[in-house]
């Protein structure tokens, strides 16, 4: 019966049949929850009751009029700053390891490894690391910088730098592997030609590698910035948002599950989503300019 249909119809049926399942999955697990989130953001639902009331824009009004909800974005600046260090280091290691050096694959593994670890495990590792007389303090003493040791999570001026540092360690591997992939797609003959022309490593990086991976650089930047705005796992596991390390996502989780205000929390999630979309759009517009 299927054979009697025209080739075009057959093709259409196959395309539809094949895309049906992924589309259904995508819809149920991505779009439907987002749609529901929008719906809940206009209610006073507590997360459990079978009933709730629609309250209009009251939740959004609360977020934008109470400085308590927005002030935590300051903390994101620390992660934003760390983003550039993270990308710089990732690019540095990716460039070095794309040339021929000893134990290349071993170092690649070492750098990528943290990204494979579970976030909870990393949180606990760094709790021991930052503890008084913990790993970091011991290390500083060994290299004669013992006077620098202090309460890494205790000091409110340092805590976010410590946490952003842990986060940097964790996510650098991801940037690194993407850069490495992009760099290895550059043809060997270009380097050879450059060598013949007498270009040194820096020249090669500046004039060959950097222009070739510009797109990937932009992509990583977008990912890193939206990551900084929505920083969550490391501070949540290590400090629970205490001592001035609260981020917007931790606050959203608290509002939803500690104070049973799922409506308000949904509104906060919507606000975060809009901010991330705006930042991404802004970047695309700005970057388009110099193309």
């Amino acid at each position, binding site marked *: 019966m299927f054979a009697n249909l025209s080739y075009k119809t057959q093709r259409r049926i196959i395309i539809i049949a094949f895309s049906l399942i992924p589309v259904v999955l995508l819809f149920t697990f991505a779009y439907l929850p987002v749609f529901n989130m929008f719906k809940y953001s206009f209610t006073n639902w507590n997360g459990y009751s079978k009933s709730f009331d629609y309250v209009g824009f009251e939740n959004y009004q609360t977020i934008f009029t109470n400085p308590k909800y927005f002030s935590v974005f300051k903390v994101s600046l620390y992660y934003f700053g760390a983003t550039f260090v993270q990308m710089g280091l990732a690019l540095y290691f990716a460039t070095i390891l794309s040339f021929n050096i000893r134990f290349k694959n071993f170092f690649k593994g070492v750098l990528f490894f943290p990204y494979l670890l579970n976030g909870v495990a990393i949180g606990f590792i760094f709790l021991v690391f930052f503890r008084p007389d913990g790993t970091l303090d011991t290390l500083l003493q060994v290299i004669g910088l013992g006077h620098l040791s202090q309460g890494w999570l205790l000091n409110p001026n340092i805590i976010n730098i410590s946490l952003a540092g842990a986060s940097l360690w964790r996510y650098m591997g991801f940037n690194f592997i993407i850069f490495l992939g992009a760099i290895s797609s550059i043809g060997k003959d270009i380097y050879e030609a450059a060598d013949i022309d007498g270009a040194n490593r820096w020249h090669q990086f500046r004039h060959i590698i950097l222009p070739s991976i510009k797109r990937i650089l932009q992509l990583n930047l977008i990912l890193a910035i939206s990551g900084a705005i929505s920083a969550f796992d490391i501070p949540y596991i290590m400090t629970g948002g205490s001592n001035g390390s609260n981020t917007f996502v931790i606050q959203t989780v608290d509002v939803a*599950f500690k104070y049973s205000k799922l409506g308000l929390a949904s509104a906060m999630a919507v606000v975060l989503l809009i901010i991330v979309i705006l930042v991404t759009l802004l970047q695309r517009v700005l970057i388009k300019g110099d193309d």
Partner: protein
Amino acid sequence: MKKSKLVLGLMALMLVLGMLAGCSGNGRDGEAGGGANGGGGSTDGGGAVKGEITVITQRTDIVDTVFKQYAAEFNKEYPDVKVNFQALSDYEGQITVRMSSDDYGDVLLLPTSIPLEDTPQFFEPLGDLEEMSKQYIGLEERAVDGKAYGIPIAVNFSGVLYNKKVFADAGVTTAPRTPNEFMAALQAIKEKGDAIPLYTNYADSWPLTQWEAVLTTVAGDVDYVNVTQPNTDDNFVPGQPHYELYKVMYDAVAQGLIEKDPTTTNWEASKSDLANGKIGAMVLGSWAIGQVQELADNPDDIAYMPFPTNAKEVIMPLADDYTLGISKHSKNKAAARAWVDWFINESGYPTTEGGGMSPVVGAPLPDTLKQFEGTDIKFELQTPAQPGQEGWVDKIDKDAEIGLWQPDFKKRIIEAAIGNRKESYDDIMKELNDAWVKSRAKVTK
């Protein structure tokens, strides 16, 4: 060429149809299973109870050992009931998510975060409150419209867990009674220099909520928590229980009587440190006594005292641990009920594993309470809220985002006392009180 594409297309279609068929097939299987369960749990009055039930518990540590033994014991009485266990590590968080479906076991602990008035949507009434109160204590906490929905798995009392030897070594031989005596004792331990006087468990957060449980002791009045509190605008002002209670915390931190770096505390380690005399005291419920004594070389060193208070009477408040109830969607309610009754009355859990008192009226007191026999310390349940005011405290608390039972403002107090925040103790209390007043007006109007 064309033919091979056709074959490929047909195969693809069959694959897709096969998958769809597979899905629906699974669906039918599930239904059939459910139906069979429903049939098995027939409750044709008086007949032998049978069926299969799932019991969800928070005790991940003993689910495969002690609970298995319980099931074996239970089966001697009810041989036709099969009991399955599921243990959730983050009980409160995971069960509330599961409760948005119909599948959340047959017997489970009632999550404390579910608002009281929503209880009947999720749980089966266990009986008339008045009737059941003759048999059990602590039912009021989960009772709606005169029906009881949960029986406490243990009744805890709250106070300070301390190491007698550490206190004695510092020259404190009797348990401090007032906040001033308590501070002096902590100071003495600090001067002695071997132990951390008071451990906060700041990093683990949840132990900080244990402080809220001793509010009744500070107030010296069983009415305060549920009756007075929702009817006062002065909940966090000087002289009131909340202010006095957390002042003890603030002062202890400000005077350096706590651990060196609270941001890196460790709950599991703190238990053995208390047991071995590296820590003087921790504010914890009675459930912790057994756990710490187990780790101590000399269990007699581990003692329990009421929270220091200036009140005339020293009341150690009794309060429910989790309460146990039956899912409204259970297919085998008779078997589930049999398990609930057996677990509370026969298993011995409340005193052995639960570390508190049995909720059964007239049950003997556990050993941990014997030390208080003959003293002037009273053990009393808190008065339930007045009719029409049930759940008010919780509603005000949530609306104001104060978090009486959350660690947040306790952490703020500690941070402020260390000097990490610009605000003073009075600033924090004033902010909490303002939030309280505002939300109380909203909730009680």
